[in-house]
């Protein structure tokens, strides 16, 4: 017997033409014994057609030439800023690593790098967690990913985060398990005794709110 969730998914897949011919035939065969399902399917199909007919997939951009030229201008400005930043970094790096120009130290550094590389190759990255992509909404923040061989860990460094005021009390939970209710978009957190620690509910902006 199918769960309510699977039944919902069947209806959606039927509507979106994501069923095989056999699945579709079987789904539609149910309509005779389940007029409610038939009415639901028909109502959703009607709605889907109206939405498709009403909302355009493309809207001409107002002042399209200006749209493009402004993007080009911003890119040009970014290139200038980046070049300046690179020049400043290079200048500070070259003075910081001046000692590396000593021949014996350069040799030692190369040997150390070779050892690190060997350790990395031997450990292999296939068994390690991997970060495929990152995104930080705040433009003043940066996310840096490091695969740390020695600690056998993948590290995501979030740079540019505002510090938490020292006087603020950061309180932890010991969450034993959680239960989720998709209908009302809440997750209830329980401790090991089954007592509720908090409820995570999404507000109208899709942001989590901790109740309790």
């Amino acid at each position: 017997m199918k769960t309510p969730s699977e039944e919902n998914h069947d209806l959606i897949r039927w509507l979106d033409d994501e069923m095989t011919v056999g699945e579709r035939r079987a789904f539609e065969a149910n309509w005779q014994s389940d007029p409610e399902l038939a009415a639901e399917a028909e109502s959703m199909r009607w709605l889907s057609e109206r939405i498709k007919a009403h909302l355009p997939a493309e809207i001409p951009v107002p002042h399209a030439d200006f749209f493009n030229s402004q993007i080009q201008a911003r890119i040009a400005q970014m290139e200038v800023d980046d070049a300046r930043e690179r020049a400043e970094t290079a200048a500070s790096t070259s003075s910081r690593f001046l000692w590396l120009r000593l021949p014996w130290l350069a040799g030692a550094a190369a040997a150390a790098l070779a050892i690190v590389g060997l350790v990395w190759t031997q450990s292999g990255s296939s068994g390690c967690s991997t970060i495929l992509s990152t995104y930080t909404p705040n433009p003043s923040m940066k996310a840096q990913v490091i695969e740390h061989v020695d600690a056998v860990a993948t590290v995501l460094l979030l740079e540019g985060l505002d510090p938490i005021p020292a006087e603020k009390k950061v309180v932890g939970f010991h969450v034993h398990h959680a239960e989720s209710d998709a209908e009302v978009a809440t997750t209830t957190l329980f401790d090991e005794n089954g007592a509720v620690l908090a409820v995570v509910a999404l507000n109208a902006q899709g942001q989590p709110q901790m109740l309790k």
Partner: protein
Amino acid sequence: MSAAPAATDPVEQQLDVDLVIRSQAGDTRAFDLLVTRYRSRIYAMTYHLVRNDTEAWDLAQEAFIKAWRALPNFKQDAAFYTWLYRIAHNVTCDWLRKKKIQGDGEFDDEHTNHRAMPGSRTMPQGFDTPDRAIKRQELGQRIDQAIARLSVDHRQAVMLREIEGLSYEEMAEVMGCSLGTVMSRLFYARKKLQEMLKDTYENPI
């Protein structure tokens, strides 16, 4: 997700893949062609989500700027448009969260009513009588308002499927979730729309 429409202009016939490679090498003219190719679709997406001309314009531009910044890391393992769309989706959803306008049910009567581009698959077919045209416009407004009242996740699911025509796999990629979540969001979004537009179904135009 479909790529650029077929064109006879040799410039427009250039493949995304070639333009992306040239852009990655720093060719801003190649990137300009990509902007021209996809700006209407990206702008439509940002407009449908934020429902304000000026903000949608800025957000679409921001998406292209972020894409340019991120191009060196783009491995072409997905279609360029899918990748670009995801960036635009992230930029817009984050902006909505900041502005706290998501799903708050506030309708602005001054919002511009956009019309579909000529030749778009979404253009209503046939000719209406004046009375029928007015009713269709009313239904359009009701649909706009109902979609505006959905949460960002649900609104996005409806748009990706009904407007963009993405497959479930592509939707999961753009929305950063599983296929099951895609189906659940589509189901609940449509249930909510159905409820809000129930009277129009019972008294069809």
